């Protein structure tokens, strides 16, 4: 019997969050200072840096020619999985066997330089993606034609419109001829016409018998391009099956999370175990100060956030809003945006958000606390609210998220004389 083209066994990836948490980089001088300090310390406290398993015990096989969709919410480990399979980062445990040439497209235009011309960038980008010069030369005309940039070949790409830039970048990548193609959400760029063209190219690639791994939030694209799908949740596989089945299940579950919600949410003691400073409870209010979970387009929302524990200095809260597909919609943070830091005595914070110029659908709020040295708490699914009606314009046409985008921009249509 034939062997699978990709075989993944118990793959896991652990990230250590530095003890400082807030600081991104290690500095040699700190390491030296700590070493000296530890020399004189009798009992060396093992301050265990926080660790996060971005991926844990992931096992699956992919057969030659299979098109596999990978779905899951943000932070579920989808990108980490692709990064490991394309050798960008190493797994902490487990292994993967790959039989064939891999091209991974985690981003379009990797290595593009704004000062270089379109032509120079095609060669540059092609080489970085693993193409030979001869190969690029052979496909050069095709790449240029697909990107529709014939006239601008000798123009530095810094003068390109963003549409042209993306077209060129995707075009180079689309002309790679690997046995296995891994794509991460790159279709979420460019105008609609070009997105269609890209999807068309992708399915052409897929039909050509190549193996494709496709990560996306676009359930429609997953359904139409893939036969099978894998769903990741918090780094683990929660479902494997036909694309239709997995997508349907995923969408159903998103709605169920929303049903269990209410306008005062208390956190269970289990969730906050071991946290030094955390959000204990959140209330959602409307403009009149009444409890609410349903809002209309352009309404304002107030969150009353109860805190517990000890921040050990000033702190500031943050919120993230995700839509029902898990897409990141908006974010707010007191410190960086407003220069607003709270003293350690504060135990209740009011967050006012809005006008909510977003389309009708359900949204999930994540709350997070940042102290001077660390991000002490991140509460995913803190609260859920619904925009029940989005009719910003003259008619009663309701604008839903799933079909017409996340936000509404001011607009007008008129005839040009």
């Amino acid at each position, binding site marked *: 019997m034939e062997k699978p083209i990709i075989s993944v066994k118990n793959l896991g990836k652990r990230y250590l969050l530095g003890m400082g948490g807030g600081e991104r980089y290690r500095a040699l001088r700190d390491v030296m200072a700590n070493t000296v300090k530890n020399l004189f310390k009798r009992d060396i406290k093992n301050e265990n840096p926080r660790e996060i398993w971005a991926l844990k015990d992931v096992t699956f096989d992919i057969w030659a020619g299979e098109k596999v969709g990978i779905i899951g919410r943000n932070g579920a480990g989808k990108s980490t999985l692709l990064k490991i399979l394309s050798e*960008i980062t*190493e797994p902490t445990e487990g292994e993967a066997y790959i039989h064939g040439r891999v091209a991974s497209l*985690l981003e379009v235009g990797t290595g593009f330089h704004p000062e270089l011309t379109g032509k120079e960038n095609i060669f540059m980008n092609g080489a970085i993606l693993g193409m030979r010069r001869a190969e690029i030369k052979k496909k050069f005309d095709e790449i240029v034609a697909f990107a529709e940039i014939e006239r601008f070949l000798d123009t530095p790409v810094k003068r390109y419109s963003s549409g042209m830039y993306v077209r060129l970048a995707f075009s180079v990548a689309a002309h790679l001829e690997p046995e296995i193609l891994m794509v991460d959400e790159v279709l979420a760029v460019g105008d609609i016409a070009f997105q269609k063209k890209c999807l068309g190219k992708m399915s052409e690639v897929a039909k050509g018998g190549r193996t494709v791994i496709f990560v996306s939030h676009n359930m429609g694209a997953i359904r139409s391009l893939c036969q099978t799908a894998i769903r990741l949740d918090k780094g683990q596989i929660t479902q494997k099956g036909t694309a239709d089945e997995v997508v349907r299940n995923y969408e159903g579950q998103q709605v169920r999370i929303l049903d269990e919600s209410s306008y005062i949410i208390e956190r269970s003691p289990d969730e906050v175990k071991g946290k030094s400073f955390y959000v204990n409870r959140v209330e959602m209010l409307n403009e009149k100060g009444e409890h609410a979970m349903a809002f209309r387009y352009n309404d304002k929302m107030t969150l009353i956030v109860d805190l517990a524990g000890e921040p050990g200095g000033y702190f500031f809260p943050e919120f993230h809003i995700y839509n029902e597909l898990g897409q990141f919609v908006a974010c707010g943070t007191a410190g960086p945006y407003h220069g607003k830091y709270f003293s350690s005595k504060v135990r209740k914070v009011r967050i006012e958000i809005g006008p909510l110029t977003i389309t009708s659908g359900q949204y999930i709020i994540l709350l997070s606390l940042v102290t001077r040295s660390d991000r002490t708490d991140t509460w995913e699914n803190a609260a859920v609210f619904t925009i029940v009606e989005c009719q910003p314009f003259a008619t009663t046409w309701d604008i839903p998220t799933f079909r017409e985008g996340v936000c509404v921009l001011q607009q007008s249509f008129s005839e040009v004389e």
Partner: protein
Amino acid sequence: MNTEHVKVIRKRHGLIGVDFNELWRYRELFWFLALRDILVRYKQTVIGIAWSILQPLFTMVVFSVIFGNLGKFPSDGVPYPILTFAALLPWQFFAHSMSASSQSIVGSASIISKVYFPRLIIPTSAVISGTIDFCISFVILIGMMVWYKIVPTANIVYLPLFVLLTFTAALAVGLWLSALNAEFRDVFYVVPFLVQAGQYISPVAYSSSIIPEKWKLLYSLNPMAGVIDGFRWCILGTATPNWTGIIISAVSVLVIFIGGLLYFRKMERTFADVI
């Protein structure tokens, strides 16, 4: 399906050798990345290519006036400008390549976190683009030799050897510092200091003939000391260099280089996670 080519992805432990097959498959990328550096640099600066010419030229004038005219340092029988220029060429080749190479990994963060190719290519192409600059400034030296009517001696056939040694020395230090810099961001501040101190402990502004005999051996532990003496010997036919010194220099370069390769290979596993 290409069955003979099976890639195994798992955590690697201990020392990791260099995968020459893979480097060979990606050979074109060395050149592409170096070319990109050069193209971008020359497109961005107004005076463009003149930059790699003006810098050593200006430094040469300063050194000749301060050390030659005012300090009355010995010039080993050649005009002082030529004496310093012949040393500035390899020194700036080394210093610029080494600095660029040290910054290269952090500077390529966006590529490293998005696509795989052998990471060794990045610091190496930084040195390759330094080599191209070196070739450009070499033309000036030829011009100066014509002006001062100096005919190169037969020793010039050894020149490629010393160019190779400079290349390896720059890459050796660059490998260490680029990997260290990815992990510890403050290494960035050490590089300019290294370059400055290095210029004084290497015979750039002066001739190594002023070093007392008893310090000569210690002095040649600095790899660039031997290289610069060698350059002067090849081009100007000054005193035969101290071959023991050059061999010591070469061996120390080789040790740093192999150590750098191993350290780099060990650290590159986590580049995408830390930068």
